[in-house]
């Protein structure tokens, strides 16, 4: 996997009202890169859910806390073959994520809550968490299926 070129970097605050701005930006970016409508919606959903988790859990609803979203075009391996992909990294300075709690939830019971991580994992090809320099870092990758993205896009 190469490091890839930076396509978009957004610095936002932990305010729920900011989510729609990021969704619009990500949707436009995914469309420009050539993702299908379904995959574009998946990318937008995964990022929105990740931001929601940061706001609710890492920052426990506290507003005005910093969040960074970086998007890069990368080559990611699938079945031993490098394929074009979108890498999205979200960073926050909130409470450490407890890896034991990142197991998602069983979907065989009808209850609200706990769906966000499930949505992220179902929507993306890779979802990885790590704690680094007092920051939570979430890396997600979505492979670009079908046609190659246009040069310079």
């Amino acid at each position, binding site marked *: 996997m190469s490091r890839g070129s930076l396509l978009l970097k957004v610095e936002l605050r932990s305010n*729920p009202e900011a989510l729609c701005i990021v969704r619009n930006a990500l949707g436009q970016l995914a469309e420009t890169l050539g993702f299908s*409508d*379904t995959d574009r*919606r998946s990318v937008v*959903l995964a990022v*929105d859910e990740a931001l929601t988790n940061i706001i*609710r859990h890492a920052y426990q609803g506290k507003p005005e806390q910093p969040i960074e979203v970086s998007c890069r075009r990368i080559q990611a391996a699938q079945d031993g073959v490098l394929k074009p992909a979108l890498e999205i990294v979200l960073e926050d300075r909130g409470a450490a994520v407890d890896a034991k709690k990142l197991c998602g939830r069983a979907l065989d019971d009808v209850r*609200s809550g706990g769906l966000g991580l499930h949505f992220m994992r179902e929507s993306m090809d890779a979802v990885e968490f790590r704690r680094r320099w007092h920051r939570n870092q979430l890396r997600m990758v979505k492979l670009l299926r079908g046609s190659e993205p246009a040069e310079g896009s």
Partner: protein
Amino acid sequence: MQISARYLDRTTILDVSGDIDLASSPELRKALLRELREMRIPRLVLNLKAVEYVDSSGVASLVEALKASRDTGSRLILFGLNSAVREVLQLSKLLKIFEIAETEEQAVAP
């Protein structure tokens, strides 16, 4: 997100438009639970035709309303689901637990 209500005989229709996310889902939850728990409406119909996006907090509000409807013996019916909303409900594996109608006529039919 915007919500407006229409009142028919023993039925309330809530027309919802815009995005249902962390910022707006508390308002939706409040509107749904008000009709079900306070107004005790026998049938609550949710028109989602103009909803462009729903996230897990929106799904959670719908699940909570469904539970409230079961507690109060009411019916909660959704209609007008577009691809985005349908995909999210499918992803949550909760699509089958909701009563879903294709049109408003079906949703309010006796």
